[in-house]
């Protein structure tokens, strides 16, 4: 009976994994085929890989775009983790009616479609003379109600006895945060880092508007430009997409260990 359950479990997970992996596999296969084979639906490895890679690097400045994306995503993610965890902690641990109301108001900002605030935001950054810089991309995206909310909800299950114990040991309130909360909440930080890195890395609309010169472009902008040609070359698009995808997968690989260890394990 137990064994049957285990088989069922694996069968279910295998099917879900296969369905999830399929498009990814297709992309990898696509990298090795010509555009016309891809649109015809060929599903076997071809011999065009190096050809596609060479043409991609001829057509687009992938290296610069990669570095631009990396700079924005890494700095943006670190700032987001810091600012949003501080706020999430503050809203939950020192909960008052006033703060609850403020948070409710902040939540509204999450619900506004970005396209609707883009034009005033653009005007603001133009007045500040900050357009076409990484700062312009990072500033509006680094504090989100979404991530504050995430930290708040996770803090609800944070064992407050630990804080009490810390106070007894004479730690001040900020030290409680940096010395007790931060190390304890590693799994939460790891999940937040993955999600934030991914959304920064893939962010499209605002970088498109805020960055205007070719050497500032991020990877998603390059991919979008490639994909919109009158006669799109899906071979090189696939290569560009795989390059775009890899860093997030890498971050996921690196950080997912945090889920394995477990929070209580790390405290003990």
């Amino acid at each position: 009976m137990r064994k049957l359950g285990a088989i069922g479990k694996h069968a279910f997970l295998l099917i879900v994994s296969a369905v999830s992996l399929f498009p990814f596999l297709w992309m990898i296969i696509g990298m090795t085929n010509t555009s016309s084979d891809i649109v015809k639906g060929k599903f076997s490895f071809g011999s065009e890989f190096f050809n596609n890679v060479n043409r991609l690097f001829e057509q687009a400045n992938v290296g610069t775009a990669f570095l631009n994306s990396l700079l924005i995503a890494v700095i943006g993610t670190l700032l987001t983790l810091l600012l949003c965890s501080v706020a999430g902690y503050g809203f939950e641990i020192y909960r008052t009616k006033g703060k609850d109301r403020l948070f409710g108001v902040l939540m509204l900002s999450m619900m506004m479609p970005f396209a609707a605030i883009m034009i005033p935001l653009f005007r603001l950054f133009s007045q500040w003379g900050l357009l076409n810089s990484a700062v312009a991309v990072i500033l509006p995206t680094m504090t989100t109600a979404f991530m504050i909310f995430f930290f708040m909800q996770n803090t609800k299950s944070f064992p407050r006895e630990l804080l009490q114990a810390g106070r007894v040991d004479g730690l001040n309130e900020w030290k409680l945060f940096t010395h007790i909360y931060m190390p304890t909440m590693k799994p939460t930080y790891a999940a937040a880092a993955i999600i934030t890195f991914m959304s920064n890395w893939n962010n499209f609309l605002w970088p498109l508007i805020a960055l205007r010169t070719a050497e500032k472009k991020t990877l998603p902008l390059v991919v979008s430009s490639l994909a919109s040609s009158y006669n799109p070359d899906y071979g090189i698009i696939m290569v560009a997409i795989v390059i775009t995808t890899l860093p997030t997968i890498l971050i996921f690989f690196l950080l997912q260990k945090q889920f394995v260890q477990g929070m209580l394990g790390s405290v003990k």
Partner: protein
Amino acid sequence: MKKKALSTLLVTALMAGALSACGSSDNSTGNTSNSEAEGGKQKVVAWAWDPSFNGKALKIAEEIFKQEHPDFELEVVDMAKTDLEQRLNTNLAAGVTEGLPDILLVNDPNIQKYVNSYPGTFAEFTNSSVDFSQFSQYKVDALTVDGKIYGVPFDIGVTGLFYRTDILSEAGFSAEDLENITWDEYIEIGKVVKEKTGKYMSTINPNDEAWTSILLQSAGSWYITTDNKGNFVNNPVMTETLRLYKAISDSGIAKPVTGWSEFVGSFNAGDVATVVSGVWQIASIMDAEDQKGLWAVAPTPRINIEGGVNASNEGGSNWFVFDGSANKELAMDFLGSTIGGSSEFYERFLTEAGGVGSYIPAFSSEAYQQTSEFFSNQAIYADFTEWSTKVPGISLGMYTQEAKDALKNELPNILNGADLEKSLANIQQLFEQQVQ
């Protein structure tokens, strides 16, 4: 104490971000709107999509212009068409001129929309050095708003009936059978092809209005009237177009597709016998190297109605110049003496990028007379340019997209056999609701 550590960390991180950004932002080629002479250089910035087509055209034009203006420099910022439209609208709506280019690529249906939505933003070419009588009239018509011409005509999408000679001859049809036919004849041929070869005659995509657009223009009509009213009711061309659309759909000769890659895939894989599309489709058709010598092009089928001709257009764009640009004169001069009046440009544009323009003097050049091995040694460009002179001129108006979406909304009902007249009234009503 640790509060300090934290805020130090925060400030450091912010500074790092700011510094790295500044470090890379100085000395950028930015400042495009007033990118005046840097040490004698005259630089002009252009926004365009598709670097291998539109970008390539600008490069050719730059080379030609440089022969007489060695100090001239052009920077092309390439981005997807939809991305370009977003950036342009955001910039203009925010009233920010910083970051706008000097030259802008605008496709035909957006001309009136931009000119009317952002008055005074785009330079007028009416009395410029460009001789508009040298261009196909329908292209100039599209660029004219209230009697003024707002740009330089660029590529065209004159349509043709691309067909697979092998499939059609297997079904018993020769080249003459496809010359100057009507859409009803096309459907009949399609039925025979389907029966004898098992191949579809064409594709059909209910989410894409390309096909209805081609039919409407071939009879000199459009989704909207010249004064931007819906043109669905009491429009015989519209009625006939939708009747034909339903007939094609019902006949089973068209393979349903839902996207561009599927559409291209259908003819690259040899699933369809014909493709009715703009001249720019040549590049995608030629991607299937195994089909070399198996293709030919005939004139577009016509609507059997008064004014219907065997020629139409799908797509095409134009170059605009910003009126407020510091380099306005230079940009206009550049466009005027290349894309706006150089036969050499159009010959090179055809040979190097496969692009067809509407500049009539170039049509007699050698480049336009070349035959194509891929297309059974047909002088395809000579044919296309000849058809281009027959395309009826229409005003695309301001609300083409709104009208297309109103039509799209009702299309499933029409295909399901709803009363056409009632459907057209619905479309008209929805359209008017949308553009209030």
